[in-house]
């Protein structure tokens, strides 16, 4: 199981028995909110609690304002920065010690009690729910505005939008590929309908064969076999390549119609979507010429 992948079953998070969230609107639907006080007009010390938000800050050209990131952050721009814990278990103590004037939080995590406490202690927190591609664009604008540079946010959002437009135009001319996207193999976890990679797949010309209403289902192998996808996308990038042989019951795997993704960009709802769409397009349409 991979650190950033959804199941996150072993991930640590602060205990929060006394709360269950109602389904929440994504950032694009006005779901973003401020916790704690408002930040200064142009915050100088920013802590990012999600790698995709780190990417957004870096893509805005403001990487120098970051003072802390998560232990999963691997962008070269933040290599030397202090780590403040994980996606689900940020350490409030480490965050506070960095004296940030803005904390960026991807709400799709279990860290609510810890983040609520950080906000209650007087640190401005921008909570950004990201579930779909439009939320990524909204995030670019919101983070840009929070950093005091709304214009840069707008520019970033438009460049991402343009990349999405390019990918869907290229894919429109090609046949749709029926695909199963494997996130974890043991147990089989796939990108289900409503997940972020599902949205990327449909932009890049794929048709997800996973059914149901859960974004990250533990999927019965039999159903995967019966769905008989044209292609199996192996997104379990931290597991050895040959492990996909476990799924040899699926015809596409036996026939070698497996594409391994080079990285987990498709699982990071942020500016990496440009590269993710390219990678997905190449995997889905190996016969197509480059852009």
């Amino acid at each position, binding site marked *: 199981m991979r650190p950033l992948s959804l199941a996150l079953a072993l991930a640590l998070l602060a205990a929060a028995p006394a709360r269950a969230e109602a389904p929440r609107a994504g950032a694009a639907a006005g779901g973003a909110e401020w916790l704690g006080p408002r930040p200064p007009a142009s915050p100088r010390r920013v802590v990012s609690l999600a790698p995709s938000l780190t990417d957004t800050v870096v893509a805005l050209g403001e990487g120098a304002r970051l003072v802390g990131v998560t232990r999963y952050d691997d962008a070269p721009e933040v290599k030397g920065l202090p780590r403040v*814990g994980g996606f*689900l*278990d940020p350490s409030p103590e480490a965050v506070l010690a960095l004296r940030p004037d803005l904390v960026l939080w991807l709400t799709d995590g279990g860290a609510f009690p810890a983040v609520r406490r950080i906000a209650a202690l007087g640190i401005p927190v921008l909570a950004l729910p990201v579930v779909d591609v439009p939320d990524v664009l909204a995030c670019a604008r919101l983070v840009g505005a929070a950093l005091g540079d709304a214009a840069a946010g707008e520019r970033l959002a438009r460049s991402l939008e343009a990349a999405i437009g390019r990918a869907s135009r290229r894919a429109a001319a090609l046949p749709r590929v029926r695909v199963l996207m494997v996130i974890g193999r043991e147990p089989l976890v796939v990108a289900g309908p409503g997940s972020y990679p599902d949205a990327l797949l449909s932009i890049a010309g794929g048709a997800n064969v996973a059914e149901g209403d859960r*974004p990250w289902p533990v999927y019965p192998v039999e159903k995967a076999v019966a769905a008989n996808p044209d292609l199996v996308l192996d997104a379990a990038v931290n597991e050895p390549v040959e492990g996909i042989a476990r799924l040899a019951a699926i015809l596409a795997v036996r026939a070698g119609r497996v594409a391994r993704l080079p990285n987990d960009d498709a699982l990071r709802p942020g500016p990496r979507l440009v590269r993710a769409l390219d990678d997905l397009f190449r995997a889905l349409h190996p016969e197509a010429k480059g852009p």
Partner: protein
Amino acid sequence: MSAAAPGRASAALALGLAAVALSVALSCALGPQPISIGAALSGLEPDRSILLGLRLPRALLGAVVGCALAASGTALQALLRNPLAEPFVLGVSGGAALGGTVVLLAAAAVARLSGAAGALLASAPPVVLGAVAGATGSTALVFALGRIGGRLVPEAALLVGIVFNAFAAGVITILKVLVPPEQAARLLYWLMGALGYETAGTLAAGAVLVGASVGALVLLSGQLNLLSLGDEEAASLGVHVGRARGAVFLAASTATGAAVALSGMVGFVGLIVPHLVRRLAGPDHRLLVPASALFGAAFLVLADAAARLAFLPLGSEPPVGALTAFAGGPFFLWLLRRTERRG
């Protein structure tokens, strides 16, 4: 009580209070982030927020939970007349977790129809109520099914508790499939037993509930002495056995339920602490219950500080429940072997 008892009692209780104060102070002083207590007290940020906003509330939460678990453990050991009884081992914690989980799931279901009603149901009071109900139910089950031929057989009751724990864990795993993955991960971590960052209101409510139920156990401790002699003996000494046992059940279940709602399944505190305290304070429950409550509080605060510090180089911290189980499992087995030799 012997003539020396009052002196011994006040010494043990004073020692317990000192242990609580010391452990809270230690837990406030130590953490991943070096801070200056002096700077914190003079209001310098971020030291002040780290000390008063993070470490102190967490230490207090640990104290409340530890106090509840150790006091219930002592009471359950007296009722079962067996040193191996403990809320976690007996399945009382498991029942509480199941009760709390069911309320959370119901809240998630209700939230689909009405967000406000769901949020209300998922707030602390209903979850605590569910946990207390689950704890009470499982205690009743263990003590009812632990009877063979009308007599309470401690080994049978322990087995019932262990089986019930496995059952509750299975049911919770099934229920977890029904909630969104984000909530499932949170549920899992909660169940492992972690001290987190509760709101002041939740912490205060939990403290009141634990204070009341542990207070009740202290008041009942005289009867616990007689109950631990056995039902017939207690009855012949004028104890209304059914009523007294019911009251102890309810108080111990309430304390455990509140502790589980606050911090999940932290195991073995109710086993380790009463056993050590018995060596210091002797077998008299009038002293043993309050002293266990105090030392339980100190124990869990220290265990949590250890959990926070031990894995510092990895930039992570395990839930304190993992640490207490790490220490408690072998302790349980040692105690079991020892009891066997004596028995």
